Every structure is written in C-alpha cells, then in structure tokens.
C-alpha cells in the first residue's frame, strides 16, 4: 500500500515534527515544512529495521502510565539516595529477581525494561532468549517476590492495556 510506504510509522512521524518544532522553539511555516520533511524521510529510512507497526489501543492510558512512571522516578531518586547515604555497605542486600512476562510485543517489553530501570531500586539486566522472562537487579530488598509482584501489577498490567 502506497500510504503505508510513505508513512510506515505515523506516530513516529508526528513525534518527529513536534520534537523538531520544540528544538527550534518557534512555530513558523518554514519550520513546520522542514519538520514535516524530516518526519516523512526518517521513518521511511528506518522502516527496514522496524518492519511491524505496534498498535496502541488506549491512548489515554499512555498519559496515565507516563504520570505514574514520572512520580515513581521522583520516589526512586529519594529511595536510592537514602540507601546510598544511610545504609552501610554490609547491610545492602542486593538480589537478582526473575520476572516472568505476559507481554509479547517487543515495543511493550522495551518500555517495561526502561521503566524498571528508572523506578525504585531496580535495574533490568537481560531478557530470556525467547523473551519470556526478564532478569532484574534489586539494589536492596528483603522481599524479592513482593518486588516481582509490584512490577507485574503496577507496570505490566497497565502496559497490557496499552499494547494489545
């Protein structure tokens, strides 16, 4: 289909136009045209490396997810800073936690892995070879099962609603 060849990723095109306008910090016709050209050319050039088009089912949930993650990032900063400052090294109990995934789309798993890294006390390390599990490193936890359930409940449940 011609339209699909010109716009392999319409959302990426739109995001590129908006990012371009924010970069030049001035909305004029010239900038809009230049931004549109970039928004068309870049997705076409990168389409071979990203053949499938992810579907986003509930756009409003994306905003909710963004706000939840933003809040958690602030909490994460305070939590990690207090562990660094007030815990002696001997008392920091780091653990590996293996989280089984229900998500299957690569885009959703990427977002989840990024979220895990940005949120309290956890860094995502590696995926299972078939993408069914993710290995998470916890800076300090006494309750690995609780951490795993929180990741599944707080982030994965919301992502499942966004990516079908």
């Amino acid at each position, binding site marked *: 289909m011609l339209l699909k060849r010109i716009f392999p990723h319409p959302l990426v095109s739109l995001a590129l136009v908006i990012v371009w306008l924010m*970069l030049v910090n001035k909305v004029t016709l010239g900038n809009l045209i230049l931004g549109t050209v970039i928004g068309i050319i870049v997705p076409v050039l990168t389409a071979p490396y990203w053949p499938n088009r992810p579907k986003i089912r509930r756009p409003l949930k994306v905003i909710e997810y963004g706000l939840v993650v933003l809040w958690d990032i*602030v909490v994460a900063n305070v939590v990690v800073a207090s562990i660094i400052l007030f815990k002696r090294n001997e008392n920091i109990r780091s653990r590996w936690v293996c989280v089984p995934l229900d998500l299957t789309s690569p885009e959703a798993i990427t977002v989840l892995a990024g979220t895990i890294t*940005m949120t309290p006390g956890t*860094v995502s390390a590696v995926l299972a*070879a078939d*993408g069914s599990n993710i290995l998470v490193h916890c800076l300090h936890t006494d309750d690995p099962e609780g951490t795993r359930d929180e990741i599944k409940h707080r982030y994965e449940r919301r992502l499942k609603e966004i990516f079908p």
Partner: protein
Amino acid sequence: MHIALEIAVSAFLVIAGVFGLVGSFGLIKLRDTMQRLHAPTKATTLGVGGVLIASMVYHWADGGQITFHELLITLFLFLTAPVSANFIAKAYLAQNVAEKDLPEPLTEHGWAIYNDPPLIEEAKEALDEGRA
C-alpha cells in the same frame, strides 16, 4: 523577578546539586558494578531534572517566554538512561558472571546473553543435521 520565584529557582538548583552529588558519591561508595549502576540511573535523574525545572522557571519569569528545550532534554534523558544502563549490565554479565550464578528463568531457553533465541537455535540444529 519576584522573590518567591527566586526562592523556587534556588531551591530547585540546590535539590539538583544534592542529588547529583549523592549519585556521584554512590558511584564510589557501592561495591560492585551492578550496584553502582543504580546510582547514576536514578539519583542523577532528579539532579539533571532539578536544573532543567529551575531553568524553565527562570526563563519564564525573566523574559516571559516558555522554552521547550528543557522538556526535550528530560525526554532524551529518560530514553537514553535505561538503554545505556542495560548495555552496561549486559556487557558486565557477559564478561564477569557465569550463567549458573544467575537465577534460572522459567523457560528452557536460558538468558539471552548465553543462549541463542529459539528460531536461530533451530536453524543452527537444522544446519548441523544437514552437514552430518
């Protein structure tokens, strides 16, 4: 500039400085690479974020114009920080940690840094059978 705004800008700058310092201190204080990864991915986010908020408030109060560059920096930071942390973690695991030291995944295929994905594995087996 109004005194309240000046206080707000200063407060954000101080908060940013404190978190930046704690993040860098954590990099020295924590013991191994995986623990050290936690300091720059988290504590520093608020460090940079605080400076950016202060910059936005200052420019808005000073010249009355809203700049979007700070929002873009935040966006790019949130996109790049987890990806680079993940690369560092994977490189560290591949170089220094044996597969048996990690917890078992709930699948027979193992972790991606030690094992091929199922499709490639099947293809390799088929190739070996063809040769034999």
